């Protein structure tokens, strides 16, 4: 397993190589890539902030959840911080499994779960403004 918050450019091949095992017939890879448009606004770039120590711990927790739920062989996740241009990769999730179905399902679920609980934030900067994008707030009683 590999979990990393880094300001360096992400290398999806490194994660593929990391999770591939001799018993893995499938490696599913998700790359989150910075898009040029959101809500009708022309995005110039994104700026990512993170709580790295906690993010790496929470990534491990959600990977262990997935390992308990699907017969997968390994998981690796990386998220980049700092300023990212259009087309650059912000998130990579790689999952290996004996068969493709579990690899796809677990990879999909891990990306969804990542966006709910891993302490990483993005600021969108467009022509004439900027805003921290905030996900669903968790309500306290």
């Amino acid at each position, binding site marked *: 397993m590999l979990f990393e918050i880094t300001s360096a450019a992400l290398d999806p091949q490194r994660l593929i190589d990391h999770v591939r095992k001799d018993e893995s017939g499938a490696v599913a890879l998700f790359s*989150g*890539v*910075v*898009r040029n448009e*959101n*809500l009708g606004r022309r995005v110039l770039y*994104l700026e*990512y*902030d*993170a*709580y790295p*120590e*906690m993010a790496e*711990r929470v990534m491990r927790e959600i990977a262990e959840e997935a390992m308990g739920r699907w017969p997968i062989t390994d998981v690796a996740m990386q*998220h980049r911080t700092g300023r990212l241009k259009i087309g650059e*990769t*912000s*998130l990579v999730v790689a999952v290996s499994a004996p068969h493709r179905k579990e690899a796809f399902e677990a990879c999909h679920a891990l*990306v969804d779960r*990542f*966006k*709910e*609980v*891993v*302490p*990483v*934030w*993005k*600021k969108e900067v467009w022509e004439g403004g900027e805003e*921290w*994008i*905030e*996900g*669903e*707030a*968790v*309500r*306290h009683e």
Partner: protein
Amino acid sequence: MKAKVRLFARLSELAGTREAEVELGEGLTAGEVYQALCGRYTALSGLKGSIRYAVNGEYAEPGHPVAGGDEVALIPPVSGGADAV
């Protein structure tokens, strides 16, 4: 007895800092640490409903007690990944 507080994303911009120290006195909860910080950085006020807390890197309820030397983080709603949340 003091706790270290870490702020991120919008909260760090509102406060103008990424780190602060809070005097715990007789003892505070994570939510009370946030309230204490609001007195110092008024721009943080009114966000109680959207903030989650972490104590020593793990999510914690607002009522979680904070001990001297703990690290409390104020966690705004997360938004990792590239596409809309």
